């Protein structure tokens, strides 16, 4: 019950911030539209890039929002207060997971609908799987954001963890250079970054009509990375501080 109340509280905070809600929905759709016109003359390229972007936007945006939200909990003293109440650490972490999962589903729903209906995105697999993977990515971004916030003392530091944790994953996930063409050591790094698997899963949806074993395996790896990040984040929540 405390978990659901915490989810509700986080969503209510989000709801009071109308501009953030508007941007959550509008920014990915605007960027996708931009991509559509950029690749207007190169058929097929938009399909490839837009599909990956549908998974990457929620990852980056939820990472940023969560790391700031959690940093606020720490700096305003609400975290310390929450930890003096009967709330369990998992109530808080999964509360964030559920709340931002819901927000991500709305965001991915809009972006995917736009991409398929107006921008003629074409994939062999169903759009529902794209939304599913996008939400998993959002939750991954959220979990990494929760973890990163523990190492930031200020908002300035928190936002800079985005380039530290998210950009290398983006560069090495196969979007810019196909993984097969990377140097061996870069591939090895790419192999241990969760976003690599999220992108591969999306590419599987793009290429196959039915969900493949590789897609489900990749989905499982992303989910596993979420659990690892949440457990690590739980370790950073201290009831006693110096």
């Amino acid at each position, binding site marked *: 019950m405390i978990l659901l109340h915490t989810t509700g509280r986080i969503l209510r905070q989000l709801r009071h911030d109308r501009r953030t809600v508007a941007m959550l929905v509008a920014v990915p759709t605007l960027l996708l539209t931009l991509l559509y016109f950029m690749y207007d003359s190169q058929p097929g390229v938009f399909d490839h890039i837009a599909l990956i972007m549908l998974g990457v936007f929620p990852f980056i945006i939820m990472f940023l929002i969560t790391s700031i939200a959690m940093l606020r909990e720490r700096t305003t003293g*609400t975290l310390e207060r929450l930890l003096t109440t009967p709330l369990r650490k998992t109530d808080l972490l999964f509360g964030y997971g559920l709340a931002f999962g819901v927000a991500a589903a709305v965001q991915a729903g809009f972006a995917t609908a736009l991409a398929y209906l107006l921008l003629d995105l074409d994939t062999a697999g169903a759009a529902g799987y794209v939304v599913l993977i996008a939400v998993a990515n959002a939750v991954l971004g959220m979990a990494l954001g929760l973890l990163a916030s523990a190492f930031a003392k200020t908002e300035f530091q928190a936002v800079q963890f985005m380039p530290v944790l998210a950009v290398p994953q983006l560069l090495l996930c196969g979007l810019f250079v196909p993984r097969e063409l990377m140097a061996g050591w870069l591939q090895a790094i790419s192999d241990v970054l969760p976003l690599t698997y999220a992108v591969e899963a999306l590419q599987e949806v793009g290429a196959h009509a039915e969900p493949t074993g590789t897609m489900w395996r990749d989905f499982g790896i992303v989910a596993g990375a979420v659990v690892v990040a949440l457990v690590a984040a739980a370790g950073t929540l201290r*009831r*006693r*501080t*110096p």
Partner: protein
Amino acid sequence: MTSAIEVADLVVHRGARPVLHGLSCTIPEGSVTGLLGPSGSGKTTLMRAIVGVQVVRSGTVTVLGRPAGDAKLRKEIGYLTQAPSVYADLTVRENARYFAALYGLGQSEADAAVRDVGLAEAASQLVGNLSGGQRSRASLACAIVSKPKVLILDEPTVGQDPVLRDELWAQFRELAQRGSTLVVSSHVMDEANRCDRLLLIREGALIADDTPAAVKASAGTDDLDQAFLTLIRRQGGGVPAPRATGEASEVPS
């Protein structure tokens, strides 16, 4: 009278600096205890140790027969931090309802707490839009919403006008009459007179632990301010000078 809180030989260091050195005291159940002392004397640190959020070096703190910070105590203890710790992007009512929900309580209890701190009119305003005094009362509502057996209030009346202060103290008294144990830190001496007992702290050590009347009697004055100064001088410390670390040392890092 049984004791609700027992502190024995408590030593706390924050960073390299010793904040409390071997402090011991006993706080009786159903009482209002005032915690007084200059900035940086260790009031907040002692309160944090009682709540169980402070890493302590040695000594013990026992609350309702359990070690401070014990999981079973989390339902029984309410803590108001010095800086208001509520969500600025929620309304007063939403804050109170969320904290009520953490204790398994419903909306009626939450709304009652909002009324009790005199924020009924402002209940649907965002906390971020409130004045400093209102914000700290919103935070207080979230601390008293569960009617906890032990209530630790760090400067609950700072920035409140005299009428509100009077009303808040009437409520603290009522909570104590219902059996709650309150520890209230304050800088205002006329509030100290309303307490059942006073703990005077200076530089991390207890210099008085008695009723307000007895503190005044032992200092040979009718004025608590004066009594405090007399007791400090008697300790051989002279009037406490503001230290370099000053206010900052009181804010939990």
